[in-house]
C-alpha cells in the first residue's frame, strides 16, 4: 500500500531533481581539463553545496503539495523520532549503523513517497537533536531518501521469508551505496587536489573511478561500510518480520486513504458535531478491537 500518492507531476519533479542532484555527487568524474572552465575553479563545489539544499527542499515541497494526511504526517514524525533516537546508538562504534533498518522496513510498508520523506526527516531531526547541521546534511538526507524510496519500489507481492531475504539484501546494498555516495561527495574535500588519490580533471572516467575505489578502500570500506551493511542486514533478518507486522497493523488501524463522507447534519440528528463521518476500515477496526 502507498500512504502518499505520488502524482505523475511529482514523479517527474522527483526524477529531474534526482538527476541534477546526482551530478552534485559525481561531478569529479566529468570536470573538464580546461583551466578556464568554471567547473575547474574552486567555485564548482560551492555552487553544488548551495544547489543541493534547494533541490531537496523543492522535492520535499512537491511531495507534500497534494496535502499530506494528518495521520501520515504524525506517523512520519513519530518514525523519524524513532530513527533519530536509534542513530546515536551506533555512532562512535565503528560501523554499527542503526538508521537504515527501520527506514527500509517503513519504506516497504508505507510506499516510496513516504520512504523518501522519512529518509529526509529522520536525518534532519537527528542532526538537530545531536546538533550536526553542516554542509554534508543535505547530501545525507538525499541519500537516505533514495534508500527509503527504493525500499518502497521493491516488488509488492513478496511475503514471508522471501520478503525478509529481499529486504535484508536490499539493506546491505543500500548501506554500501550510501557509503560510496557519501565518500564520493567527501572525496574532493578531504584529499585536496594534488595527491595520488585525488581526482584528475579531464581524465577518463575509469581512471577517476579507480582512484575513488582506492580512496574508498583506504578510508572506509573495510571498517564503516561493511559494518554498516552487516548490521543493517542482520537487524532486518532478526527483527524484520516482527517490525513489519507492527507497521502493517498500524497502517491498517490508521486506514490511510479511507474515503471521508460528509453527511448532512439532518441525516444523523443524534450527533452533536457537524456530521463528519469516516467510513472504512478505521471505524470497523476500532469496533473489532473493542
Amino acid at each position, binding site marked *: 500500500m502507498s500512504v502518499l500518492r505520488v502524482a505523475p507531476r511529482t514523479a517527474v519533479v522527483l526524477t529531474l531533481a534526482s*538527476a541534477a542532484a546526482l*551530478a552534485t555527487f559525481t561531478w569529479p568524474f566529468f570536470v573538464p581539463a580546461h583551466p578556464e572552465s568554471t567547473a575547474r575553479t574552486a567555485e564548482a563545489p560551492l555552487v553544488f553545496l548551495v544547489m543541493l539544499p534547494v533541490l531537496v527542499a523543492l522535492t520535499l515541497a512537491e511531495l507534500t503539495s497534494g496535502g499530506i494526511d494528518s*495521520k501520515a504526517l504524525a506517523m512520519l514524525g513519530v518514525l523519524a523520532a524513532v530513527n533519530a533516537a536509534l542513530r546515536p546508538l551506533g555512532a562512535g562504534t565503528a560501523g554499527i549503523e542503526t538508521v537504515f533498518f527501520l527506514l527500509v522496513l517503513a519504506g516497504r510498508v508505507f510506499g516510496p513517497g513516504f520512504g523518501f520523506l522519512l529518509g529526509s526527516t529522520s536525518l534532519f531531526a537527528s542532526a*538537530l537533536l545531536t546538533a*550536526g547541521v553542516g554542509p554534508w546534511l543535505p547530501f545525507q538526507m538525499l541519500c537516505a531518501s533514495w534508500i527509503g524510496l527504493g525500499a518502497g519500489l521493491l516488488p509488492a507481492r513478496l511475503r514471508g521469508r522471501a520478503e525478509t531475504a529481499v529486504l535484508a539484501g536490499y539493506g546491505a546494498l543500500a548501506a554500501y551505496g550510501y557509503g560510496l555516495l557519501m565518500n564520493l561527495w567527501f572525496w574532493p574535500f578531504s584529499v585536496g587536489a594534488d595527491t595520488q588519490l585525488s581526482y584528475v580533471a579531464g581524465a577518463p572516467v575509469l581512471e577517476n573511478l579507480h582512484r575513488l575505489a582506492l580512496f574508498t578502500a583506504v578510508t572506509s570500506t573495510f571498517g564503516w561500510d561493511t559494518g554498516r551493511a552487516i548490521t543493517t542486514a542482520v537487524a532486518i533478518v532478526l527483527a524484520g518480520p516482527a517490525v513489519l507486522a507492527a*507497521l502493517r497493523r498500524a497502517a491498517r488501524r490508521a486506514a490511510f486513504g479511507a474515503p471521508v463522507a460528509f453527511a448532512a447534519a439532518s441525516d444523523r440528528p443524534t450527533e452533536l458535531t457537524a456530521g463528519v463521518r469516516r467510513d472504512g476500515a478505521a471505524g470497523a477496526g476500532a469496533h473489532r478491537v473493542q
Partner: protein
Amino acid sequence: MTDAGTTADAGRRPARWSAWWLPRGLHPGAWWLWALGLATAASHTTNPLPLALLVAVAALVVVRRRGDAPWALAFRMYVWLGVVIVAMRVVFRIVFGGGQGEHVLVRLPEIPLPEWAAGIRLFGPVAVEQILGGFYDGLRLATMLICLGAANALANPKRLLKAVPGALYAVGTAVVVALSVAPQLVESVLRVRRARRLRGATGRGVRALRGIALPVLADALDRSLALAAAMDSRGYGRTGAVPAGQRTITGGLVLGGLVGVCAGTYGLLDSAAPGYLGLPMLLAGLAAAVTGMLLAGRRVRRSRYRPDRWLPAELLVAGCGVAAAALTMLAGTVDPQLLYPPVSPLTWPQLTPLMLLAVGVAAAPAWLAPPPPVVRVHRPPVADPPVPVPTTTSPGDRS
C-alpha cells in the same frame, strides 16, 4: 524619536534603545546569515592569518552570545572536526603526495603498490611546500565549517523551523513532531522495562532487546494515531482553494526551473557547451523553481504564535556577516597575492588593513547583539530531564 511614537509602539515592539540590551534570543536567520557571511569570507582566502582570526572571532561570539540550550554546546565538536580535516589533508599529502617541492624535510622510504592500485607509491620525500599546501587548503575548509558550527551553537533550530516557507510547512511539522516525540521515547522505554520486571522477566541480551524494542515501537505508532486525531480536531491541514490556472503556473515554474537546473549543471560540466548554458542557466532555473515553490506555499494558511521579528539588532548582526564577506572580496580584488599566499617560493603570509577591518566587523556581534536569555539556575550538565530510574529490581517495592 518622539515620546508619542514610543508609547504608541510600546504595545507592539520594545522601545528602541532601552530594550536593546534586554536578554532575548536573536532571530535564528540573523545568526545564520552572519555565519554564512563569515564562511564566504573564509572561502575567499587561503592565507592562514585571516583564517585563524576568523576562527577566533567565531569562538569569541559563540562564547559571549550562546544560550544554555543543548545545541549551544555543539561548537566544540565542530572545532574538533576542523582539526581532523586539517590533519587528514596533511596526512594524505604525506602518505599519498607526489613529492613536489624543493625544500625536502625528510625522505621516508618509498613503498610502491602493485599494478592494480594504479601504480601509486606511498611516502617518499616530504616537502615543506606540499605540507603547507595541504595545511592552507584544509584550514580554509575547517574555518568554513567552524563558522557554520557557530551558527549551530547560536541559532535556535526550533525557531528556525517556524520560519520555513509555507510549501515546506508539512515537512517542518513532521520534524517538530519528531523533535518533541524523541524525549518521550525514553519514558516509553522505562515504562516497558518496568512492566517487564513486574512480570518477572529478567532476560538480558537479544531477547530482552526484542521484548523492549517492539512494545516501544508499537507504543510510538499508537501515539502517532492519537496525535493525528488531536491535530484533526484542532483543524490541522485546512488549505485554501487554489484556482486551476495558478496550479498550472506553479507547476510549470517548478518543472521548467528543474529542466533549467539540469541543463545548467550539464553546461557547467561540459566544456564544449556555450557559456550561457552554465552558471547563468543554473541560477535562472533555481530561481524559477524556488518561485514556483513559494507560490505553491501560499495555499497553506496558518497563524503564527509569537513570531520572530527582524528588529535592528537582527539587521545589524546579519549586516556584519555580509560586510565581512564583501570586505574580503574587496581585499581580493585589490591584492589577490596576499589572500592566496604562494607556496612555491616560501613566503610569510601577510595581513592588510582591509582584512583586519573585515575581521573586526565580523567580531562586532559579540558586543552588538543582545545577550542570550540564560536561566541562571545551575543544573548538572548531564541528564537533561531528570527521569526517575527504578534502581532495584524487586517487583514488590512499587505499587
